[in-house]
Each structure stands twice: as structure tokens, then as C-alpha cells.
């Protein structure tokens, strides 16, 4: 019998209580996995979308606000001539309620710009000219809106013909309604305004070179910021709020888990006072008793974490299909997030075990001779 066997038997003696405690931790960890997975998914989904369009740098002005602030389309002229810039494309992106979809990405692109190139027609055709009252839908957007070629889609007060269904090569692209820039500028009253410039660079630039170019662009256009694709979202106010809320909610759930494990371990120590005293009378050192309780607690955390990750995966799958966010982002369940969740759960276990372990170390071995 190993010391670990001694520890696991401690948990097995009250299977219902152990199971409920595991569930308590698991709910907390599932919250971490789901919420953080969602907020990270926001970044990875949009980064993947950018990559599928072939965008290396995004010029935007989202940093100081929750939503993108439109800026003049002419801004592009100040950076397009830079030697490392291969192409640019003005875009206006809105996340808005469209018909039955509460949140839908409406992505308007400069007519003839490279940001159209990644779109592959699944059915129908592309708009014929920039002012045609038409849009193409990404495959997921078409599913969410239940539209097919020949239907119409209403964006604010304007009814547009759905002329094509496209595959964009990324989750966010497939979840978008895509139309020409002048059309959306007209619909939203943002004539000559854009929310971002997609910048494609000449091949072969390394990360350091891209960063230097971003700095140079930001100097040339002080009213906006140039950042590598994907990172432009990390520094936005909106993402920070989402991230903070995700961590805050997860933290609350984890704190509930800590109290749950502490309660279980304390009850376990109280119930086993005489057993612990017997072990002390048999020559066990107090440090071994403390180790036993902490290991039990850590094991509870670990098992709760594994269960929580499982629940989190289920939660993520459910969230992916939720009408409110379907097509908007793909939750990110990376190995890194799994490791964070496991680390948190083990820390929850150890942290929760400190007080019960300390109480157990204070027991007197003479209790062994009572009863």
C-alpha cells in the first residue's frame, strides 16, 4: 500500500459527500473553461478570420472605447505608399441585430479590395457592382438567418437581396453578412467612414518588422492605431471588459468551490479525529497527517478540475449553438486553457486544505485512548 492509497481511501469513505464536493469544484472549473474559452475564442476566431483574408496588420481606433469608432476612409492614403505594404482594403464592420439574430457580424469591404478574395461561392454569385442592393452570407450566417440565395435580408431599414452563400475559410467569416463598403456606409449613415483598414504586407516580414511598421503607421495616422492582426482586439476596451467579466465570474465560482472543499475537508477531519489520533499514537508525525489532508484536498481539486473540464467542454458546445453567439465566435478550448483550469483546480484543493490540515495537526494523540 502506498501513501497515495491511504489518501484515496480517505476520499472513498464518503462517496456521496466526495461526489458532491467534486461537482462543486467542477462547476467552478467549468465556468472558467466556458467563459475564458469564450473570451479567448473571440480573439482566436477574429484572428483566424483576419488570416483567412490575408490581413497582416489592422488599422483601427477601438482602443479607448467599447465599440469601433469610424474614422475617415481617406486615412488609408497616408499608409498605402509604405514600401512593405502590398495592399490595403478599407472595411466597415458592425456587430448588430439582424432580423432574428441578436448579434450578427455585418462586414462591408471596399469594392475590389483583397478582403473579398478569400470568399468561395457555395451557391449563387457575388454582387455585380458596389451599389447593388445585395449581400452574400457566410455559410453559418445563412443557417442562423435561415436564408438561401434569392431571399432578402433586412439590415436596419434597408432590404438587401441574398445573391450568394460563401465559405470564408474561418469561423467569423462564415458567420458574417458581407456586402460592399459604400452600401453599408449608406445604410448606417457613415459616408466616407470606415472602422478598419486591412493591410496585407509583402511576404517575408518577421514579427519584429511588423511591429516596427505598426509603430510607423501609428505615427503617420495619430487618430488610429496599427496593430498586428488579432492583437488589435486584445487591447480594446471591449475585450478587456469581456475578459474581466469572464475572470470575475469564474473567480466567484472558484471561491464557492474553495469553501465547498474546505467544508468537506473540515468535516472529514472532525469525523476522523480519533483515527488521526490513532495514527499519531502509532508514530505518525504531524507533518505526515498534514500531508495526508493536503493531498486529499489537492486530489479532490484535481478530480474536480478534470470533471469541470469535461463539463466545460459540454458548456462550450452548448454555447456554440446558442442563437445569441452562433457564428460570432468559436470558443477556444486550447491545451493552454486546460492546463490553466487544472492548475486552478489543484490550487483550489491545496488552498482549501490548509485550514483543515492545520486543525488536524493540532489534534492530541491521547484521543486514541478515549472510546
Amino acid at each position: 500500500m502506498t501513501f497515495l492509497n491511504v489518501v484515496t481511501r480517505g476520499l472513498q469513505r464518503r462517496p456521496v459527500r466526495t461526489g458532491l464536493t467534486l461537482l462543486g469544484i467542477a462547476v467552478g472549473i467549468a465556468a472558467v473553461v466556458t467563459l475564458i474559452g469564450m473570451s479567448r475564442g473571440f480573439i482566436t476566431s477574429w484572428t483566424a478570420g483576419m488570416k483567412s483574408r490575408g490581413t497582416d496588420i489592422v488599422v483601427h481606433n477601438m482602443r479607448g472605447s467599447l465599440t469601433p469608432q469610424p474614422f475617415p476612409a481617406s486615412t488609408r492614403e497616408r499608409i498605402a505608399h509604405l514600401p512593405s505594404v502590398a495592399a490595403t482594403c478599407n472595411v466597415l464592420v458592425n456587430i448588430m441585430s439582424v432580423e432574428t439574430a441578436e448579434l450578427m457580424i455585418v462586414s462591408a469591404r471596399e469594392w475590389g479590395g483583397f478582403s473579398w478574395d478569400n470568399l468561395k461561392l457555395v451557391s449563387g454569385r457575388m454582387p455585380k457592382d458596389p451599389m447593388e442592393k445585395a449581400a452574400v452570407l457566410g455559410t453559418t450566417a445563412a443557417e442562423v438567418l435561415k436564408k438561401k440565395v434569392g431571399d432578402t435580408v433586412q439590415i436596419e431599414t434597408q432590404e438587401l437581396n441574398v445573391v450568394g452563400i460563401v465559405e470564408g475559410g474561418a469561423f467569423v467569416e462564415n458567420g458574417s453578412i458581407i456586402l460592399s463598403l459604400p452600401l453599408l456606409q449608406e445604410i448606417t449613415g457613415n459616408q466616407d467612414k470606415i472602422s478598419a483598414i486591412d493591410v496585407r504586407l509583402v511576404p517575408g516580414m518577421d514579427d519584429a518588422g511588423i511591429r516596427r511598421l505598426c509603430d510607423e503607421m501609428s505615427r503617420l495616422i495619430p487618430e488610429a492605431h496599427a496593430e498586428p492582426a488579432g492583437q488589435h482586439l486584445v487591447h480594446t476596451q471591449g475585450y478587456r471588459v469581456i475578459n474581466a467579466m469572464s475572470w470575475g465570474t469564474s473567480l466567484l465560482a472558484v471561491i464557492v468551490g474553495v469553501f465547498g472543499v474546505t467544508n468537506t475537508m473540515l468535516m472529514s477531519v472532525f469525523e476522523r479525529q480519533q483515527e488521526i489520533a490513532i495514527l499519531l499514537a502509532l508514530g505518525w508525525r504531524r507533518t505526515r497527517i498534514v500531508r495526508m489532508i493536503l493531498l486529499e484536498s489537492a486530489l479532490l481539486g484535481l478530480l474536480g478540475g478534470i470533471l469541470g473540464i469535461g463539463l466545460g467542454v459540454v458548456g462550450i458546445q452548448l454555447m456554440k449553438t446558442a442563437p445569441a453567439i452562433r457564428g460570432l465566435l468559436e470558443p477556444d478550448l486550447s491545451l493552454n486553457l486546460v492546463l490553466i483550469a487544472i492548475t486552478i483546480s489543484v490550487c483550489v484543493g491545496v488552498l482549501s486544505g490548509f485550514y483543515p490540515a492545520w486543525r488536524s495537526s493540532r489534534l492530541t494523540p491521547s484521543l486514541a485512548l478515549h472510546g
Partner: protein
Amino acid sequence: MSNHEKLAALPFVYEAAGLKKEYDEGTVHALRGVDFQIADGEFVAIVGPSGSGKTTLLQMLGALDRPTAGTLSYRGKSLSDLKDDAAYRAHEIGFIFQSFHLLPPFTASENVEMPMFEDHQSNAARSTRARELLKSVGLEHRFNHFPSKLSGGERQRVAIARSLANSPSVLLADEPTGNLDSENAILILDLLSDLQRERRMTLILITHDMSVARRASRAIQMKDGRIVFDGEPSKLSTHS
């Protein structure tokens, strides 16, 4: 001469002088100045009614508690000054309890392994030793049985095997036959007597049963925290 040899050369295992123990801020006097010496290899029965102080004395001998006043030394060293009382309990003494105190979630063999965790033996060595000890108390057919599946007598035999785990030189037994029927009580006493004789161990046994005390080579009778008789068990009846 090694430390162990030096200790073994001393004439007494335990020496108590003016041993006192008070509880509840001095309102309860469990021991009121107890003096005795116990030699290596003796079989001593400590007898007395409830509240006489015999369990308190056993706690002192097992370093489970410390005296309020007086000294109690083990092989010449004061138990109050022990830096590592866990090591003393793990290696020098073995405890046998009235209620057996086996740990329910563990098999007989695993219960016997428990004291060996502080001895830094390998898992295999612990397991082998536990099985040898269970065999020596006649329980080779009960290795993997949980305490709930054992009779009272078998549980106490497991507890005796456990007390021998680290080859102690002293066995401290607290009413070891108190929860057994007369047949099993005789078997357990025979087993303890044989072990004490074969292994030349010091056996200190607490009992309120005079017939059990008479099996010892010496009896110490206590009353109200004091020793009222210390001598041959056969003479106990005239003093009880």
C-alpha cells in the same frame, strides 16, 4: 558502544519520580506523585478502578501527554524532553487499544502496515512484513479482510500484529481484553504472554480485571492517582 547498546545496558526501561498530572487548571488530579521503576522484559499489570489514573499513566508512558510535575524517563532519558516523540512512539513502543482501533477503510494487512510509513520502508517490504506479522498471530487467512469482516478476537490480533510492526521493545496495552468474550480474552492473553517471553519485550498492560492482572509478573495497583500496591500479582487480592 552504540547508542542503542548504551540504552539497553541501563537497568530500567521506565523510571518515574513524583509523577503528577493535573487537568482543568489543577482542579482534577489524575496522578498525585507516582514513583516506580520498570525493568527491561518485565510483564507489568497496572490495575485499578475507573478514575484511578491508570489510563493517564499509560498516556505518559506512551508520550501521548506530558506530566504536570515530576519526571518520567525512558531508558534514562526524560520523556518530557523528547525532541521527536513521534519517533519514540514509532520505534520504541507499540500500542494495543481496548477498542482495537483498526482503521475501517483498510484491510488487516494494510492496518498492520500503518506504523511502518515512518520507517521509510519500500511498499513491498511493508507488505511482506505485515503479512509475516499477521501470520505470526495466526491470521494468514485474513490478510485482505476489512475490520468489519473480522471477529473481536481477530481484530485484536490484527491490532497486536500492528503494534509489533516496527519491532518495539515495549508494548503498552490498554485493557486489551476489555471488549472480548472470555474465550478470546484467554487467547489474546496467551498471545501477548508468548510474544513478551519470546521477544523479551517489556509488556505494560492496563486492566481492571484481577484475573488478567494475575497473568503478569508484577502488578501495580492504583487508586485516586496514587500507587497503593506494587508487587506480586498473587498478593493483589488482599490489597484490592
